[in-house]
């Protein structure tokens, strides 16, 4: 009997390897796939039947017999018919969780390489035009139109051009890049090969964070196996070294060049002077992986879905305190509330949702009062937030938003490359301000943070910052410190060199604006989102 078990890192973390072994021991033909993307049903086992693949999950290693005879209590029926999946529009993740990620036959059988074939039948300019027409925007967070970026590289005169895939997926609560690389690596390779054809590049790099060993392994194997299909385009994987800031595109380029990962000033744009000083397409995994669909099915098919200027689909990642965490690919325009409550099913703890953070650690916090927001680059920007890489982290009512604001500053301090002053010094000062605020607010203002969450004192100067000596000679009143926090956020937002320092004010100010009571304010602040 043929069964399908995910080998995705998240599934493995939930015990999928043990489950797969148990089925193999029972004589089953076990196909390891990527993950379907709903973690509340992992480890998921799908049994091939005449009616199609019947899912069971979660399943343990002791459940083999019950699954095989169809009696197991977690029988789900056809997985794609579950509400979580039926509502999705899987353009990019169509194969993820379905196929053996490294099987060239599986990939080809499900429309694989059709986009590349279509692209190679066209002139580079036509390919770029198709991508422009699709409305695809950078899925890494900035939302810059991918086709326009490609046009710049196509137009740049140069001997060598490069395609660089940013797979340094560092945002907390995001995992779409990893899932795709582990679950459908050829899709990314095909997207990069299309990009190479479109701009005239000969070589590509996939920069993957070192915390993704499965993805690195899978991509390397996939590159090797598909080399003949994408030739003369060649590809290689470069492994990151643990710095969040290397997800910033120019720091990533420096890192590939073998330098210290430090942000470069722009201009020059990487499209004109990127890797090794050459014109470079640098795109996120999700941008590149969306391209095979666009070329195979046409720009219109992609652009037909979406909202406003946000066209196509977004693989939204639900994480944190949420009942149904996972990946949900859907056209833009679905509201935040639908995603959190309908798709995600509210909090895992069962307590009321108090806040969600959208777009990773640099994204804004939104209260339920803003759940009407449609998932759309412009709508979120207008509301003082960002979509980012479409990670949504859910918090229940036990969250201390002052603590979360402090965490944002602390995160920035820990990950700052140290190049620009607002980020390098400002983030540490931000932690210190938050310490003063938190020390002064009424003890009942918010739930106390778990002391275990506080960082230990063994963190060098950062720890000094966290446990700074009692302030003297400065106005330490709540009002003064809150006002200083706002000024600091202003300096960081408008003065920083890159998005790390520039976006850290989003979580800080959104927490302050939407949850002033956690900052010791006696009355709600009037002008919330200035």
């Amino acid at each position, binding site marked *: 009997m043929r069964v399908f078990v995910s080998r995705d890192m998240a599934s493995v973390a939930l015990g999928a390897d043990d489950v797969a072994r148990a089925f193999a021991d029972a004589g089953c033909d076990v196909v390891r796939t990527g993950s379907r993307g709903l973690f509340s049903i992992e480890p998921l086992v799908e049994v091939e039947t005449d009616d199609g693949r019947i899912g069971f999950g979660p399943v343990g290693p002791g459940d083999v017999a019950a699954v095989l005879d169809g009696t197991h209590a977690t029988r789900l029926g056809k997985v794609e018919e579950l509400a979580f999946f039926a509502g999705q529009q899987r353009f990019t993740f169509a194969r993820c969780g379905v196929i053996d990620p490294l099987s060239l036959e599986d990939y080809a059988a499900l429309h694989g390489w059709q986009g590349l074939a279509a692209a190679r039948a066209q002139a580079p300019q036509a390919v770029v035009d198709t991508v422009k027409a699709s409305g695809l925007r950078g899925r890494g967070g900035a939302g810059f139109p991918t086709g326009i970026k490609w046009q710049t590289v196509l137009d740049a005169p140069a001997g060598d051009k490069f395609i660089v895939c940013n797979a340094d997926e560092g945002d907390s609560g995001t995992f779409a890049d990893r899932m795709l690389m582990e679950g459908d690596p050829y899709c990314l390779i095909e997207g990069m090969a299309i990009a190479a054809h479109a701009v005239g590049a000969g070589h590509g790099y996939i920069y993957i964070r070192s915390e993704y060993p499965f993805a690195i392994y899978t991509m390397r194997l996939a590159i090797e196996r598909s080399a003949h299909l994408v030739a003369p385009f060649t590809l290689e994987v470069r492994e990151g070294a643990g710095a969040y800031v290397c997800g910033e595109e120019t720091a990533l380029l420096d890192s590939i060049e073998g330098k210290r990962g430090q942000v470069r000033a*722009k201009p020059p744009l990487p499209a004109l002077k990127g890797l090794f000083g050459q014109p470079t397409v640098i795109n996120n995994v999700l941008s590149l992986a969306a391209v095979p669909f666009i070329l195979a099915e046409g720009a219109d098919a992609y652009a037909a879905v979406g909202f406003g200027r946000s066209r196509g689909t977004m693989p939204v990642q639900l994480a944190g305190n949420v009942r149904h965490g996972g990946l949900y690919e859907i056209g833009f325009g679905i509201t935040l509330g639908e995603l959190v409550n309908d798709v995600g099913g509210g909090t895992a703890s069962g307590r009321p949702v108090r806040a969600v953070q959208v777009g990773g650690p640099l994204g804004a916090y939104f209260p339920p009062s803003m759940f009407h927001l449609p998932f759309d680059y412009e709508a979120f920007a207008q509301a003082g937030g960002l979509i980012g890489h479409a990670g949504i982290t859910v918090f229940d009512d036990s969250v201390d938003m002052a603590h979360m604001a402090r965490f944002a500053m602390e995160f920035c301090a820990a990950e700052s490359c140290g190049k620009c002053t607002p980020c390098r010094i400002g983030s540490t*000062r931000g932690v210190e301000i938050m310490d003063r605020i938190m020390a002064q607010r009424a003890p009942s203002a918010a739930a106390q943070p778990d002391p275990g969450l506080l960082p230990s004192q063994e963190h060098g100067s950062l720890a000094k910052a966290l446990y700074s000596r009692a302030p003297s000679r400065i106005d330490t009143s709540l009002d003064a410190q809150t006002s200083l926090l706002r000024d600091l956020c202003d300096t960081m937002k408008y003065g920083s*060199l890159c998005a790390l320092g520039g976006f850290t004010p989003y979580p800080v100010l959104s927490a302050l604006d939407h949850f002033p009571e956690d900052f010791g304010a006696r009355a709600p602040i009037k002008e919330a989102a200035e």
Partner: protein
Amino acid sequence: MSFSRETDHGTPAAIATGKSVTLTIDGQSVTLPEGTSIMRAASLTGGSIPKLCATDSMDSFGSCRLCLVEVEGRNGYPASCTTPVAEGMVVRTQTERLKQLRRGVMELYISDHPLDCLTCGANGDCELQDQAGAVGLRDVRYGYDGATNMGQAKDQSNPYFDFDPSKCIVCSRCVRACEEVQGTFALTIEGMGFDSKVSPSQGEDFLGSECVSCGACVQACPTASLIEKSVVEVGTPDRAIVTTCAYCGVGCTFRAEMRGEELVRMVPWKDGKANRGHSCVKGRFAWGYAQHQDRILNPMIRASVSEPWREVSWEEAIAHTASEFRRIQGKYGTRSIGGITSSRCTNEETFLVQKLIRQGFGNNNVDTCARVCHSPTGYGLSQTFGTSAGTQDFDSVMQADVILVIGANPTDGHPVFASRMKKRLRQGAKLIVMDPRRTDLVKSPHVEAEHHLPLRPGTNVAMLTAMAHVIVTEKLYDEAFIRERCDWDEFTDWADFVSEAVRSPEAIEPLTGVKADEVRAAARLYATGGNGAIYYGLGVTEHSQGSSTVMAIANLAMATGNVGREGVGVNPLRGQNNVQGACDMGSFPHEFSGYRHVSDTATRALFEQAWGVSLDAEPGLRIPNMLDAATDGTFKGLFVQGEDILQSDPNTHHVAAGLAAMECVVVQDLFLNETANYAHIFLPGSTFLEKDGTFTNAERRIQRVRQVMAPLNGYADWEIVQLVANAMGLDWTYDHPAQIMDEIAALTPTFAGVHYDRLEAEGSLQWPANDAAPDGTPTMHIDGFVRGKGKFVVTDYVPTDEKTGPRFPLLLTTGRILSHYNVGAQTRRTANTAWHPEDRLEIHPSDADNRGLKDGDWVTLRSRAGETTLRALVTERVAPGVVYTTFHHPETQANVITTDYSDWATNCPEYKVTAVQVMASNGPSDWQRDYADQARTSRRIAPLEAAE
């Protein structure tokens, strides 16, 4: 000149594209070259945008975030340093909003900076201080109780500057200067975020790191984090005088920054056309010898070298000098005396010394230390091209595509030029190194030679001819160029010669030890890789075939059409600061200034008319001939200005014997040098800081030397020569070196346009500067060779007579090291000894093993000329069979070992090839012991009786 900081436009000038854009800055419409940054645009139009990480000596970086501006139609606040101007752009640099942002950034800076301005070494000369004022910061609301980087230990390991991490603002200017300007990559930022720190190498101190102490980081530092120890000790300068460095032939110009009469520091001058604002450890820091206690400030005489010196008045010393020279001439004849001009003194001084000899001594017995370094350059380039000088300016290297370095080690010998060259190599130019040693250029951070040809010392001509063989037989030569510029028949004769199979790379491989494939590949690259530029040093000239090698180089350049434009050429890297000038000024026994032969009647008539005497038409004696004649008893008196022939010239025993045979040796120098051990009269000299004049560097650039302090010895060197001349009956009345230059210009066609007022106005001039070339000549031979048709000279390889054998199985080659200069008289009297306290013998591990030697062991180095003892440095920089040392330290006296073989055409000594043996040693050689005793005796100075 009063003290003012040089204007800093924040970012370098845009790379010229010919296009310009018009924009509006603060309401003012301006048109500027495309690619100019907004910051530079604002500065050029009289504005000033706050900045800390930007400086116009390096690329913009965009880290300090003080320079934010508003651009209409653009979101946010772009950094003006990294944003180029654009057509129609409307920029505002001073608004309330920008003030607020800039204050916000500055408030963060100051929240992590010690506020000890009043006691800080940079107080009043600190960009952070200035900018805090400029943005109007009045309060630091973060307090001073948070995390800080203050209180970290200072790194005071470098003898010349301190690093105080507490005052660092992490602008990376030092790191970038080390990379972009110097090209050493010794510095980095360690750690991340708030913990980011400047770190030499990998967490070492500066002295122990890769740092070469060029000073670029110190110059770049906007605070007191990197600061000269001299500024900490003396205080910030209050005036500055631009002058020219007295070390190597690069000719860096510096601002001598003074506080009152005290020299505080030497800072490379941004407008200096030779150094473009860069420096090395010697020029930047090693000037302390000028005030060293060893300096002799009073004239001294003695009857014999066994007596102690007796201090006398200037009057007595000068009168005694004149009467001794006249006495000797009376007894032994007019030609029994002569003199040596100094390549370290000014053009004017050199001119006066040769004038003293020709006019006053009445003979042509004048020579100069170029005899022992670049005389083959003068001869070889004059024969082939028609001019005894390099063809390019230093800027030319930035247009080169293939750089061929032969027998030169620029990173040690000509470090500031090497930094330019490395910059060009990082931009993608290809490098070929022809050198027996694996010099730093062969492989160092971000520089790697495409081809290294580690040839056996003494086989240069065979190697260059083999390259010519490849170029000719593979038809890679530039026929159009040759037909137009050279004599075609001479070319075909030469082509036939080099094409013979015996001159192929394969045939000479056993001689040179270099793989034929590598030679072929290098030849092809040079011939076909675009602009090919050759730079060479003493590894070319100091051979028995030095002149042939220079001509072989010239042949290669002509055959490939690599002469007569920017980016190409044949470029000797001259050793001493004014060796080019000394040669230009008529220091050779056969030539007047401007390389005109003494036998030329018209030229002689010109000088005879000007000087009112009849001049000898016979060339005089070269240095080795003077010494030979002295031991033969026919040459009895010598005037040596600013050169230490005993230490620098080959075969020290022979030099000593020659000097000892003379009746009157007059040494004019700063110190009691080794030659002075054999002197009867000592005239104290003045340093370059104490006089006016000009130096001419390796690119024929004439630059002013300006007095920054009064001569400690009472007179500038040119004044002393004038005193001697007048005591000998001449009637010289120079009040200022400008008058001497006027005389040079009047008598020397290539210098006809050189006058002090023009040098003041233009900074420098490259000769020829005359009516035909009113603005001087950066690149020579543009429209044709100076001699008419370029001449191909057949260069047959003749092996040197100096051969290895059972007694002397190794080949010694000599050279220099970064921290020391020439005989070390200056640098040994500075803290540069921290890097190189002694000469060491580099020996390959296999040769060391065979002799049971370990790194640091004392070894005896012996040749047929003599022996000495020094410590071994076991290294793979030298090939097996080759050993190497420097000659900076008199204790070692490396020239005891070198022989009196010399170049067939010019007598330039064969320093680079000596057959030697190396063995373990248990103490100094007999020579070293005897010499030490002799030197001790000879340096005694009798106590002054009268003055007590």
